[in-house]
């Protein structure tokens, strides 16, 4: 009986070669069966790729997002891949090329599905980042008063330079495949870190698999945090590989005896740090400092996590570079003090006000997110469920391993210390998401180490494969819901993109462009030429004061436009519980008020212009397409009108860090009779990563 058989394989699997060669290739390629562990996942990848690429481009998505429009071929491919993984991993040959192909296929099928399925890149913030990059490419300048992110511009300047060298003038072309590339890059430091924690290569690959299948946070779009997570992992990989003191040496030092005794009790199978010369250590130290400084100038939050993690490693004697967190902390404070003045002047309370307020921070990060309609709440609950399951399994794995062979203490530290950041900042309600992102690599590794047999003796092969397969399938399903469950407003419809291109082609420079919610493909070009505002950012919760919006636009010499899209309508329904059809009601109310006229319309977007309309910049007779519906009343176009005077850029808008989610007002927009506020409110600004 197979289930009762015992499969014993060497405890320490052979290390994969430089180029990922495995024992399979060395045994000759003629035997197809021997190649099956590579051919099956490669076939699954090919099937999934073909199926997603050949599927009809979606025009819309349902309440649970991507999962509802995945073609059958993609499901079959994922099922075959998971089954192949479960069998290969349990049989104990999950290393080298066969493991690499499994992981590659998983990354493409999970994180690359939108790139293959959608016509345009998803997620509005990614489009905004493309706009920042395009602006730097074009002008070589920054706009620190327009957006808080421009105060940490390193990522955007770097991407602009790279794009310029590559001749890519439209950074939107980088968006679609960036998540796949950056996820694959994470594999390098994760495998290096895995080496210090576990000797068995197959356990490291299983940890990597768990990382990808549970990585639902969605911070891997073209963004500073995606690249900074890579830098964070690289720094830790170098420190743990080359600057980790052996416990036996540390024991000789009187001051550290208690720590060593403590750690020795935990860790009885130490993987020693790699030996280095003085010159190598100097070079590695310089590399670590360089990557740390690059992180400081390119992201607000990652350097904080880095300093906390390095501080914990130094404090608990798992790093000899005990001055490094101090050095990076000083660099971080110096940068914050001198280079980010536009951000923090007047907002110190927003930065440091959250220190110690753990309760309110957790509330903003957890409680405030469970809101909206039933579909959205389900997605949020799945996210929480996946997180809790992973953390519980990892915790159980750590405890299990502690009882048997012990575990590298650094792994415990890195899997837990990022939680400290929640006590410092709510980060606009996103700190818990970031904590999950920064703990996940180590939690996933802990899970693999905790439950992988060591030595690799699998007594119930079928049962083991079933457990691994079912767990992977459940996590993959959870991934699709948790990661892509908000596609109703994160998916960028071709018609929405067409509408925004029309706006940028026609809106006079200096004009105001407003939307109900920032879930549309805007600011991807000419980011400095228009003021981008939210209709609702007037201290009136989610209600819209139409007369106030009109007055604000009329006060602007170049006028203004309101863009309403299906994505915004979905966001209103899902996030704020607004009734179905609320956007059409808003549009009708705006038109009926006499303050706005519809100047462009297609099946997913309305563009309204304030009356009296300012002449449009350029009249481009659009080719009639199936997506375009003549607007009523017809577009207000004044041909050959003199170009409007360019209004100097608006007064520097006040940057307001993103506040906790506003209270829901589940009613249709406020009537125009409501008195408008006297003072001009600040334009919408969010400090978002």
């Amino acid at each position, binding site marked *: 009986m197979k289930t009762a058989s015992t499969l014993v394989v060497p405890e320490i699997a052979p290390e994969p070669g430089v180029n990922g060669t495995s024992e399979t290739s060395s045994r000759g390629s003629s035997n197809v069966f021997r190649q099956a562990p590579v051919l099956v996942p490669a076939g699954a990848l090919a099937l999934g790729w073909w199926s997603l690429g050949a599927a009809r481009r979606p025009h819309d998505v349902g309440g649970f997002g991507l999962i509802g429009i995945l073609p059958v071929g993609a499901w079959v491919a994922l099922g075959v891949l998971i089954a192949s993984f479960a069998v290969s991993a349990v049989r104990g040959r999950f290393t080298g090329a066969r493991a690499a192909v499994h992981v590659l296929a998983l990354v493409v099928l999970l994180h690359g599905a939108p790139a293959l399925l959608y016509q345009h890149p998803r997620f509005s913030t990614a489009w905004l980042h493309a706009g920042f990059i395009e602006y730097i490419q074009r002008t070589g300048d920054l706009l620190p008063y327009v957006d808080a992110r421009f105060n940490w511009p390193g990522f955007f300047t770097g991407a602009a330079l790279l794009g310029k060298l*590559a001749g890519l003038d439209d950074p939107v072309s980088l968006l679609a495949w960036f998540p796949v590339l950056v996820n694959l*890059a994470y594999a390098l430091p994760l495998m290096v870190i895995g080496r210090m924690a576990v000797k068995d290569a197959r356990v490291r690959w299983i940890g990597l698999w768990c990382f990808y299948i549970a990585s639902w946070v969605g911070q891997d779009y073209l963004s500073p945090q995606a690249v900074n997570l*890579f830098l964070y992992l690289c720094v830790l990989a170098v420190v743990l*590989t080359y600057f980790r003191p052996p416990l036996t040496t540390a024991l000789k030092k009187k001051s550290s005896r208690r720590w060593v005794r403590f750690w020795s009790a935990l860790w009885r199978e130490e993987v020693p740090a790699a030996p280095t010369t003085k*010159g190598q250590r100097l070079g590695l130290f310089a590399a670590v400092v360089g990557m740390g400084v690059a992180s400081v100038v390119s992201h607000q939050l990652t350097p904080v996590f880095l300093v906390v993690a390095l501080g914990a490693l130094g404090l608990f004697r798992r790093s000899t570079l005990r001055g490094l967190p101090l050095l990076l902390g000083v660099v971080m404070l110096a940068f914050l003090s001198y280079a980010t003045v536009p951000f923090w002047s007047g907002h110190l309370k927003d930065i440091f006000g959250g220190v110690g307020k753990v309760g309110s921070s957790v509330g903003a990060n957890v409680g405030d997110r469970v809101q909206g309609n039933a579909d959205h709440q389900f997605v949020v609950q799945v996210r929480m469920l996946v997180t809790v399951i992973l953390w519980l399994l990892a915790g159980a794995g750590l405890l299990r391993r502690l009882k048997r062979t012990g575990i590298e203490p650094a792994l415990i530290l890195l899997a837990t210390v990022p939680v400290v950041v929640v006590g410092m900042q709510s980060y606009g309600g996103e700190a818990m998401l970031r904590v999950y992102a920064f703990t996940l690599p180590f939690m996933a590794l802990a899970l693999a180490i905790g439950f992988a047999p060591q030595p690799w003796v699998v007594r119930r092969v079928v049962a083991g494969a079933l457990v691994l397969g079912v767990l992977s399938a459940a996590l993959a399903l959870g991934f699709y819901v948790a990661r892509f469950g908000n596609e109703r407003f994160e998916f960028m419809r071709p018609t929405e993109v067409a509408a925004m291109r029309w706006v940028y082609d026609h809106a006079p420079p200096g004009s105001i462009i407003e939307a109900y919610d920032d879930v549309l493909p805007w600011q991807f070009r000419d980011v400095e030429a228009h003021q981008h505002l939210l209709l609702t950012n007037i201290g009136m919760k989610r209600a819209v004061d139409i007369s106030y919006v009109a007055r604000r636009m009329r006060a602007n010499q170049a006028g203004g436009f309101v863009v309403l899209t299906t994505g915004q309508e979905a966001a209103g329904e899902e996030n704020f519980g607004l009734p179905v059809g609320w956007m059409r009601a808003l549009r009708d109310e705006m038109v009926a008020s006499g303050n706005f006229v519809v100047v462009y319309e297609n099946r997913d977007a309305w563009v309204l212009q304030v009356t009296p309309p300012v002449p449009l910049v350029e009249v481009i007779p659009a080719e009639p397409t199936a997506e375009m519906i003549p607007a009523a009343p017809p577009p207000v176009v004044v041909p050959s009108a003199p170009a409007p005077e360019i209004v100097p850029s608006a007064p520097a808008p006040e940057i307001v860090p993103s506040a906790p989610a506003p209270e829901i007002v589940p009613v249709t927009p406020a009537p125009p009779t409501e008195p408008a506020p006297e003072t001009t409110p600040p334009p919408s600004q969010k400090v978002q990563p």
Partner: protein
Amino acid sequence: MTTVLRPSQWAAALTAAAWLAVMFSAPAVLRVPLALAFGLVAPGLGLVALMKLRKPLVEVMLAIGMSIAFLILISYGMVKLGGWSATMGLYWLSVPALVGIVVESARRADEGR
């Protein structure tokens, strides 16, 4: 007999290819992969080659990590100092990329004497 390029030679080769692609405005199918490979690998690889770590996985990781750090710091410096220029960026990124081969050549010349 197969000849395998050393890391410093890879860095130099990528640098030369990127220079040619940028200077002669090569078609996108050539220029995009060459420029991306150069910017994301070569500056770090040139310095990693000097460390002689003999761990390919660590060397590749460090090459990419350090290259990204160079990209960020050099481009940020250019913007802050008001000297934004793709050509200048190419110059500055080429310095660390070529350090490895220059130092190795100098060492070899010393050993030859």
